[in-house]
């Protein structure tokens, strides 16, 4: 009988030169296959004496176990080497661009409207939407712009052909303020003797009779806020809008209030926010002033309260209005307002 150690040595030796799966299979056939020396040894065990048989059998078995272990180890080694090879071969240029899908985007005006409305919602202002084509009465007269009043010069209107309507023509709303009247009347109708308080945000498209240039547009969005109740003060207006400015422009934003004029508020104010680009030092964005005009505001005029069904002796309120497109222009330094309705994908895809 062949020396088991010799078989192991020879087989192990042969295994080291195996390089691939085929070589490994050939090695297995030679050393562990049906016709291998080892199998012949097992086959010859029957011819041995009872005394010799266990010892020889055990020896052959040890050879078999050793060779099988070596085979398993080599198989794993080859597989590992194979994986290493393929990993090396599969190396990609990860700097090539990825495959994309089309991602839809909200229009920048919608995005800004949402920012504004979200902050206002958290401050308790609920969205109130109202119509875009209005009567002169609701757009102007009930808001304390009498016919032919100089304040109308501030808002050139687009009128609708609607036959003879005297001093109440139909027009495209010049601001979202007519919604104040509609909302107040709706709320007041809930309880005409004791109308409930109001806290609403009025977003939407407004129109002015202006030529379309890089600085002026025939249509633009506006968001107004309106708060009415039995105890609202100018100090509340300042608190509310200063908080709004901090949410919108950062906790360190400073706001200032300048006296101003709107027919539907009194006292009226403009709120400026310290320029967030230069921190108030003066730059191109704030045109050197250090301040950015953000919104107009004021205490609701007693005539407007009255027209809305709220007794000015018992109720007070404040209102404010701002332009989302103007805010975007400041924020992203957009110098041409015409981009908004041109919907050029090269503009839209930057948001």
């Amino acid at each position, binding site marked *: 009988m062949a020396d088991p150690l010799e078989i192991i040595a020879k087989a192990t030796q042969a295994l080291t030169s195996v390089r691939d799966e085929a070589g490994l299979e050939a090695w297995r056939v030679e050393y562990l296959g049906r016709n291998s020396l080892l199998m012949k040894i097992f086959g010859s065990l029957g011819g041995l004496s009872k005394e010799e048989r266990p010892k020889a059998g055990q020896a052959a078995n040890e050879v078999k176990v050793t060779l099988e272990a070596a085979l398993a180890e080599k198989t794993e080694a080859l597989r590992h080497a194979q994986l290493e090879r393929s990993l090396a071969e599969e190396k990609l240029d990860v700097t090539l661009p990825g*495959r994309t899908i089309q991602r839809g985007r909200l229009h920048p005006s919608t995005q800004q409207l949402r920012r504004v409305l979200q902050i206002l919602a958290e401050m308790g202002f609920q969205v109130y939407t109202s119509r875009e084509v209005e009567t002169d009465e609701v757009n102007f007269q009930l808001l304390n712009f009498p016919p032919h009043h100089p304040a109308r010069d501030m808002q050139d209107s687009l009128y609708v052909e609607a036959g003879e309507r005297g001093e109440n023509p139909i027009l495209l709303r010049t601001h979202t303020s007519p919604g104040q009247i509609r909302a107040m009347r709706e709320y007041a109708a809930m309880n005409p003797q004791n109308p409930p308080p109001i806290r609403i945000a009025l977003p939407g498209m407004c129109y002015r009779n202006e030529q379309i240039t890089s600085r002026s547009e025939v249509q633009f969005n506006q968001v107004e806020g309106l708060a009415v109740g039995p105890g609202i003060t*100018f100090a509340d207006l300042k608190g509310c809008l200063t908080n709004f400015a901090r949410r919108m422009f950062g906790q360190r934003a400073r706001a200032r209030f300048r006296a101003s004029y709107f027919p539907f508020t009194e006292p009226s*104010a403009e709120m400026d926010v310290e320029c967030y680009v230069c921190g108030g030092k003066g730059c191109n964005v704030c045109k050197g002033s250090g301040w950015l005009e953000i919104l107009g505001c004021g205490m609701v005029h007693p005539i407007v309260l009255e027209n809305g069904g709220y007794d000015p002796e018992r109720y007070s309120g404040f209102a404010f209005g701002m332009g989302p497109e103007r805010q975007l222009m400041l924020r992203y330094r957009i110098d041409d307002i015409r981009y908004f309705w041109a919907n050029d994908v090269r503009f839209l895809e930057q948001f």
Partner: protein
Amino acid sequence: MKIPLSWLTDFIDLGGLSVEDIAHKLTLAALEVDEIQYAGLPMPSSSSGQAHEFKTAGIGWDKDKIVVAEIREVKPHPNADRLTLLDLYDGQKEQTVLTGAPNIFHLKGQGRLAKPLKVAYAKEGSTLYDGHAEGLQLTTLKRTKIRGVESYSMVCSEKELGISEEHEGIILFDDDAPVGTPLADYIGDAVFDISILPNMARNANVIGVARELAAMTGRELKQPDLIYQTQGEPVGDLVKIEITKPELNPRFVAGLIRNVVIAPSPYEIQRRLKLAGMRPINCIVDATNYAMLELGEPLHAFDYDVLKQRAGDRPVRIITRTAQDGEKLTTLDGMQRTLTSMNVLVCDEKGPLSIAGIMGGAESEVTEETRNILLEGAAWNFINIRRTAQQHSLPSEASFRFSRGVHPALADVGVRRGLQYMARWSGGAVAPGLVDEYPLKPAQPVVTVTPHDVKRLLGIELAAGEIAALLERLEFACTVRGTEVIVTAPPNRLDIGEGAVGLADVLEEVARLYGYDRIPESNMADELPPQIGNPTHEWEEGLRDLLTTLGFDEVVGYRLTSPESEARLLQGVALDYVKIANPIAPEKSVLRRSVLASVLDDLQHNARLSESLAFFEIGPAFEPLPGDLPTERRELALAMTGSRSALAWDQPESPRRDLFDLKGRIELMLNGLHLAGVTFTPTTSITYLHPGKAAEIAVGGKLIGLLGELHPRVAEKYELTDAPVLVADFDLETMRAVLPSYGIKPVPEFPPILEDIAVIVDETVAASQVEGLIRQTGGKALADVRLFDVYRGSQIGAGKKSLAYSLAYQAPDKTMTDAEAAAIRNKIVRRLEQEVGAKLRS
């Protein structure tokens, strides 16, 4: 409104305040300074990093280099006829200065001047505007030789100093100009360009702005003196006034000045007028303008001799009345104006003399020959003046003021100021008295303010005495009675009302004078309002999000369009539009009827900018309603075109999108909205859709929208690529009305049995019908049906198609057996055979 600082200082001492300080105070007090124009005073330097709040223009004059000097002799230039050499004394020494100024040319060679000319003298190194350049170019004065004579300094024109555009000659100052004084100290100025808000009409003048500054700073306002000598017959004996419509002409005042000499005004007056934006004419016209800019009362000067001549032997009778329709008047600009009954005229017995408050007539205008002047100061109805000025397109400094409201109390003050200046500048003698008709005195509103009101509306604690002290700064007359302040509006204001309005008017002044910046910030203490929310708005916002996740970009287009533009899409349909009476352009003449048309405009704009486009817009479409406001229907429009998938470096091509690309997304959208029972029904009746590729989308029989490929004939009217354009259009109100409430099914615990079947049907059988039959027959046990193949070919014969479905059978409470599944399948196949003649494909 341009207000020179030097003029303000006639009425208030502004010492210790910088130009920027003053502009800042005005801006916070609702007199917003748009720009500061420097004309001599030092400008804040941007290079020094000094913060300055305002837009600035103009130049500051170097005190060492630009001074007042006098010309003592004008000598000829040895080598140039058009140039002269000046013997000039600058306060330190006499030197020779070369100039080409035409306005001293006539003095050439006259020897020593009896009266030296006072001029602005700029030394070497001065920074000035280049007088010869177009526009305003800064330049530094350098030593040079002109025609053989050395030149290192110059006498200046107004343009060179930034006072006006004038460069025809050098400035000649008044005789009392102090030689050797830095020019900046003599006439250095800065001009505030202030936006006058509609409620601030009272401040469209120098004293109004000075009054506000006095109130804001607590300084004293110096009132004008209005003192002048009079002589001769009183005006009251010579002129009578008759007002026929007091509501249109509450007051008319006239004064008379005799023996005026028409001459230029003093230089300082001309300079201020120019800085304020008016052109000096002569001392009489300038006096009317100067007094108006100063006090706010527009004045009109008539040639009294013309009036006298028209009156014959009788006294002059001034009559104010409305015009007759068609009445004519030639105004002093030479235009013949045809008047209407709305216009108010100043007339005499012979006819109209001027359009009240707007423009004088040519006949009675002041000319070089005028010697005697009747000066008018009146009050007019501001709305009437406004409409007249608009009707005749006659904006003027006078109509600007009158159309915003000038208090009648100013009429006599204005006339006296005008007469005072005329006497001072023209040498004329003022006749004693004024004629003053004042039939309609405006109410002087009285408002009661209490500390409680101030607390309730402004949120600050002020005692009655403090409220009164604030208001008195703006000349409100205040009486404190216990906790009440009885406030009477001053006689320069028309913007104070009564009752609750008056209270708001007065509280605004309290807030402004107290300082908006000193009012604290507080949080509203009121109870929360009813929580209503806005479900429609919230739902639309959700829909926007859903559509962006499906790959659509949101667009927002113009709501203004033209019928021609929309006709490309909505051809052959006669549509009523909401028409704009005064459109900004023909292509923006109506409100859109179709949001889809708007989205197609955007698709056209971008057609060649991107390989694939997918847009949506949510917004209103407008339709007129007779006798009512138009409807504003909320629509969703979708459009897509281009390649199906994004191209990449290893995928250079992609199939073009077709109907099913859009339909798949719409199905996902409807699924996202939980709409069930949606049907797509072929339609050929939509003119803008391809007749073979169009469907009506309905839910429970209610039409909610349309889907299809744009008709090629419509597509060719837009500038697009040749790829199919897929569009859809939804009525959001109908869609919202059919939204179901829905629940969630339990997740199945038992595995499904999956099976594929293919059936052959006639080409005419709609896939939706086959699927409907499968689902109906399978019932609850059929968890899912998915079409995975459509096959046409010779194997199944012409006019036929094979539809292959993957079916999932499932029971909620147990694992279904093959036999049970087979039973269902057999039922399905039998039903399909019966209903649509289907054959099971083996």
